[in-house]
């Protein structure tokens, strides 16, 4: 058994023969239990990667392996059983007439028992704060409620690979935090390759590794701290760094040198405290 759950080998993709390449020689691996954040400017190819992983698209060049199996027209039905994906716009994925049916749908397809289904509908909708909406039609939900239900539906199938394509973009910071806690809780409990595509820098700092896309190519790949140390270069490709990294820079200008690139408030406060105690 390999621990590489996902492998892209020299993958190139374009949406048509007369269209430009949108992915060029992309190679990377993602381990089981790993959380990888994919960031990059609009149109850099992030959603295309997601669609290639669950076989909504197939590459013209290179190959993609999921759990050692090559993604092809034949293998894709099997592979999709293990892959849960939330799309950028949840309207594109609702299939049930009610919220409850929608969460049930993915489980039915995977032959999960009635009993477990009932349990999971309740627990996942509860986890995303939507348990009062069991009988609501999905199209009658607010923007953020739709995202919450879409996330419940994929959590319910308990996938091995979970891809969240800007799945929390319509939530407030607090709501985002809660949802990501739920997801990473699931990852801790039962193991899961987690791929989050996001423009939310707070979310990126929590990942194990960051893949930075630029113009269809991998621009860099490293842990968040190393990525966010490249402030100016990131800005050049349309990205930015989190609040604490900007403040650390401003502190440097004010004559306070922070020892290492902070990723969150506690780290920055800790560094300031150490400095303060020394003087």
């Amino acid at each position, binding site marked *: 058994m390999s621990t590489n759950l996902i492998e892209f080998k020299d993958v190139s993709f374009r949406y048509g023969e007369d269209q430009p390449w949108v992915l060029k020689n992309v190679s990377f691996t993602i381990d089981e239990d790993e959380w990888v954040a994919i960031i990059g400017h609009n149109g850099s190819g992030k959603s295309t990667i997601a669609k290639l992983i669950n076989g909504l698209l197939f590459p013209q060049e290179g190959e993609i392996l999921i759990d050692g199996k090559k993604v092809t027209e034949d293998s894709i039905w099997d592979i999709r059983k293990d892959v849960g994906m939330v799309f950028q*716009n949840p309207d594109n994925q609702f299939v049930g007439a009610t919220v409850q049916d929608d969460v049930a749908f993915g489980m039915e397809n995977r032959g999960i028992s009635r009993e477990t289904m009932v349990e999971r509908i309740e627990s996942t909708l509860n986890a995303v704060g939507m348990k009062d909406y069991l009988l609501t039609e999905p199209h*009658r939900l607010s*923007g953020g409620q739709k995202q919450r239900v879409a996330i419940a539906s994929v959590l319910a199938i308990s996938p091995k690979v979970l891809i969240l394509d800007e799945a929390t973009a319509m939530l407030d910071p607090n709501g985002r935090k809660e949802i990501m806690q739920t997801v990473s809780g699931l990852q801790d409990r039962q193991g899961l390759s987690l791929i989050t595509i996001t423009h939310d820098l707070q979310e990126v700092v929590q990942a194990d590794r960051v893949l930075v896309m630029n113009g269809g190519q991998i621009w860099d790949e490293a842990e968040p701290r190393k990525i966010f140390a490249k402030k100016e270069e990131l800005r050049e490709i349309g990205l930015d760094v989190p609040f604490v990294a900007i403040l650390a820079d401003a502190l440097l*200008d*004010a004559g306070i040198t922070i020892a290492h690139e902070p990723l969150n408030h506690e780290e920055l406060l800790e560094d300031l*405290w150490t*400095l303060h105690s020394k003087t």
Partner: protein
Amino acid sequence: MDITFENVTYIYQKNSPFEHKALENLSLHIESGSYVAVVGHTGSGKSTLISHLNGLSIPTEGKVKIGKYALSENEKINDMKELRSKVGVVFQYPEHQLFEETVEKDIAFGPENFGVPKNEIKTRIQKIIPAVGLSEDLLERSPFDLSGGQMRRVAIAGVLAVKPDVLVLDEPTAGLDPRGQKEMMDMFYQLHKEQGTTTILVTHSMEDALKYADHVIILNKGTKYMEGKPEDVFVQREALNRVQLDVPEIVQFISEFNERFDTTIPFQNQSMTELAQMIQRTLKGAESP
């Protein structure tokens, strides 16, 4: 155009078992030429509120006044089109407002519909395309063959092309990359300053509300929970937490710093540079423990 909500209640699917009260007895006033942010938890009624501004929803009870137009159960507007030429709305999900065959036709649809001459539309499009960060070679593409962020930019371009007096933005930067978020917000602000566009922004970014708006309205369960100047509202942590909202990150950091160092750095809507200097002075001035 001044905008007023007078005791507005809005009920979805009224008189059915699924009846849902999304706004309840809501009154508010938005002055012509102001920049107002609307903030609130998931499902608090923000999108419902703004759907009244271009007559997409009519109050179940109460009245909405937009300039000379009044909307209520018994006063239906005959000229909805005129209202919609003055109030431009960017919806929460951009797909909901794209429908033409090509990006160019999509952007031209609004102004064409409101009788703007063809050559004037061309000029407008040429200006808007770079302003929203799109590249010219996407103009002939179907708007559905775009990335999420590109669709968002097209949807925004289509609304701007009408040159509305009132610009209503429902989370307009969701899906944009960090540079796009900043450039787009700066552009809306510039329109607001230069053209006097009344701007109503629904956002989850307390930072944006703080940076751009003169007034913020906090909704909770369809009612007005708080309102005021952003710098006054966003320091009230407990009140915000009660409706599942957070203070902006800078306010949060300052309070954590003060707690840790037993200091009293105030929040004054200061820049990062100013904050860094305050921290520097505080650390230098304070006795070490």
